[in-house]
């Protein structure tokens, strides 16, 4: 039951070493999290974007979530004994365990496939499928260095060729199947690792309920195989520090992983550390290279090198134009940003730190974070200096550094997929740090496991929301509003995707208008992001035959960006449908001269011109309104796509 009293002092046998607050600290962290969760639910477009999930759940689910969040940890001692019955005490599994694990893996694959992330076609996915449609990957591509994830693409394309399945389906099926393999791998590791059954349960919860699972095992992108590879790499590292001879396998998986996705290279410092510890066993002279001072010096040197690359190779310390192509090219956040508040986010903006924590919260099982904070507070008893923890800390550090510097708005469509690869390292660091708290009958062992179980509901809620198109779209719109008020560039795309997923056109228009009004007080002058949203609202109104209002919004979009060719075309089309043919001809003529004179880039703009000229002709012949209406109805499918 709930215990808030300070922990007892005494020997390890009685309850472990004297801890600062012990279970009370765990409960405090847990309740802080719950309070933030409630605030996130009340203000879904606020800076609490990483824990606003309850806002998008249907009301009964919301109440259910809150009740379970309170009940699961508080009554953990009631049901833990039943759960512990299925966890073997020994590190050896028997046939029934393997059969049960395989059954769970198959079930998991099916769940991953049926609850695929509903926004999986947004972000880079279309680009990825286009690349694979236009290029046949060969072994030469896999060996070469011009692609960031050649092996992943080679495998998926190969399966598509062999099975005759559509490339997108291959990605979806492969991701779900890899989810099954992940369950097998994590389950096998959690059940066979040497430790107490409570700790084994903790490992299973930490691995199975990492938020990143719902992201990687139910979508179309290149991160799933490398995620699995990273998990295998970290298991091998665990075995290595158990004294097993797995170093060569680690190196092999590291090389394969780099070919699956280049982010695997962030494990290089940790792997180097493992190599040094192995060599140090034979050659004493090498031991000084992995002492704390040498490690800190090595980290500082690597940060210096990265800073040089950041400044002189990527020129990422400032934006020259701040447009989306520049952001996609540089990928990193700048130190200087000329945009006015609230769009002036930089690498060292205070809110950026909270964003990093929330990105991590999305990626791991949140209980892991509580264990890490708990271990930091009680650092003297946490084994931070053990080689295993040093290894995982190094791995986490470089992923964290990468996540800290990358512009978060590059990959938000599916919960920061590029940044979510930090999850395996953090999970293993949390598992390693948690081990001492579960070794003897510490009271906080139950508390830690209870809150980990409770917090595992949060990734499940994300799983539910992201697999439901309407809920995912609602969440995306709120993320977009937050993005507009923070990192700015790219936020309109999120809002637009969220709005375009609303099935009812009237509702879509109302929602677009509401969001534009909400963003207007924060707009810059000119504001390209707002202009994009105004153009999209104009297009929605035009499709809904509300031409007068469409004209108004296309006009607003052109005030923000006079070179928005799509808005010019939309304006001309709206004028056509209000029978202002002369005006439509005047609007479209400069566009055609600008983009279709040297070579045709937009045939639709030429057709709009011809419709306008024919309309002028009909009016000059004083054609009846029935004739004009018939003509416009025939032209409509050609013009509005």
């Amino acid at each position, binding site marked *: 039951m709930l215990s808030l009293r300070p922990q007892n002092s005494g020997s390890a046998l009685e309850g472990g070493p004297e801890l600062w607050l012990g279970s009370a600290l765990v409960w405090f962290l847990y309740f802080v999290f719950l309070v933030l969760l409630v605030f996130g639910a009340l203000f879904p477009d606020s800076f609490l974007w990483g824990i606003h999930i309850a806002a998008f759940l249907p009301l009964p689910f919301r109440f259910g979530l809150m009740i379970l969040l309170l009940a699961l940890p508080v009554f953990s001692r009631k049901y833990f004994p039943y759960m512990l019955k299925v966890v073997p005490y020994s590190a050896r599994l028997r046939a029934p365990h393997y059969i049960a694990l395989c059954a769970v893996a198959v079930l998991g694959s099916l769940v991953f496939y049926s609850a695929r992330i509903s926004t999986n076609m947004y972000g880079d996915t279309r680009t990825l499928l286009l690349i694979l449609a236009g290029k046949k990957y060969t072994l030469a591509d896999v060996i070469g260095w011009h692609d960031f994830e050649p092996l992943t693409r080679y495998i998926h394309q190969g399966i598509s060729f062999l099975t005759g399945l559509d490339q997108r389906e291959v990605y979806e099926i492969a991701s779900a199947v890899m989810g099954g393999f992940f369950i097998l791998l994590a389950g096998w590791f959690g059940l066979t690792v040497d430790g107490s059954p409570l700790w084994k349960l903790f490992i299973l919860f930490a691995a199975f309920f990492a938020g990143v699972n719902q992201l990687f095992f139910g979508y179309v992108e290149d991160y799933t195989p490398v995620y699995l590879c990273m998990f295998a790499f970290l298991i091998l590292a665990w075995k290595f520090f158990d004294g097993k001879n797995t170093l060569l396998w680690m190196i092999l998986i590291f090389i394969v992983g780099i070919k699956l996705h280049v982010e695997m290279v962030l494990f290089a410092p940790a792997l180097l550390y493992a190599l040094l510890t192995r060599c140090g066993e034979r050659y004493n002279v090498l031991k000084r290279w992995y002492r704390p001072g040498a490690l800190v010096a090595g980290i500082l040197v690597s940060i210096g090198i990265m800073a040089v690359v950041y400044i002189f190779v990527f020129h990422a310390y400032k934006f020259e134009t701040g447009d989306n192509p520049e952001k996609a090219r540089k990928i990193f956040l700048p130190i200087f940003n000329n945009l006015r508040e609230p769009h002036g986010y930089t690498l060292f903006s205070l809110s950026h730190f909270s964003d990093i924590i929330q990105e991590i919260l999305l990626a791991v099982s949140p209980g892991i974070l509580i264990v890490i904070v708990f271990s930091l507070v009680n650092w003297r008893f946490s084994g931070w200096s053990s080689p295993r923890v040093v290894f995982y800390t190094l791995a986490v550090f470089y992923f964290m550094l990468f996540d800290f510097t990358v512009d978060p708005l590059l990959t938000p469509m599916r919960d920061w997929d590029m940044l979510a690869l930090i999850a395996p390292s953090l999970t293993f660091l949390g598992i390693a740090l948690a081990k001492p708290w579960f070794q003897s009958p510490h009271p906080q062992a139950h508390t830690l496991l209870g809150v980990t179980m409770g917090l595992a509901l949060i990734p499940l809620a994300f799983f539910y929301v992201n697999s439901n198109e309407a809920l995912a779209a609602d969440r995306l719109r709120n993320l977009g509003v937050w993005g507009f008020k923070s990192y700015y560039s790219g936020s309109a795309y999120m809002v637009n995707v969220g709005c375009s997923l609303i099935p009812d056109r009237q509702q879509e228009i109302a929602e677009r208008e509401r969001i534009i009004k909400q963003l207007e007080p924060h707009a810059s002058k000119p504001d390209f992001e707002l202009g994009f949203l105004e153009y999209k609202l104009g297009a929605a109104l035009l499709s809904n035959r509300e031409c007068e209002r469409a004209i108004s919004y296309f006009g607003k979009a052109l005030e923000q960006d006079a070179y928005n060719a799509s808005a010019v075309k939309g304006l001309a089309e709206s004028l056509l449908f209000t029978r202002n043919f002369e005006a439509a001809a005047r609007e479209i003529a400069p566009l055609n001269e600008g983009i279709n*004179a040297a070579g*045709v880039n937009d045939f639709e703009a*030429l057709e709009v011109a011809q419709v306008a000229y*024919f309309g*002028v002709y009909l009016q000059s012949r004083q054609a009846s309104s029935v004739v004009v209406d018939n003509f416009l109805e025939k032209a409509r499918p050609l013009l509005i796509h």
Partner: protein
Amino acid sequence: MLRSSLIFCAFILDILVLPVGAYSQQWSAPRPLTGLPEVSLSVRTIVAQEGFRGNAVEWRFRNTSDSTLKFTYRLISDAADTIIGRVTIRRQRSVYSGWVIRGKRFENMFAEDVIITPAK
């Protein structure tokens, strides 16, 4: 050695570039409109879609006079498809439009109901 390398490179470049030129969108020679010789018409085929809707073509009216011209045009293709419109073109300027037509080229091009507004 250097000279032969340059010639070889130029040869390779030609091989690469020539097909691009051959397949690029080419304007036809400008032809005056019947009834309004101050306006010439050039046409180019964008996408040949024989057996489907027709050919996507772009055309350009060029006003070579020093007056603003407003006129009704009637373009008739070799497959008897007729395109009609009424357009205003300022002096020494061009306007562009396009459509998917049956046929490969315009055989007859007429202008009528011409209003000439002299430049001020």
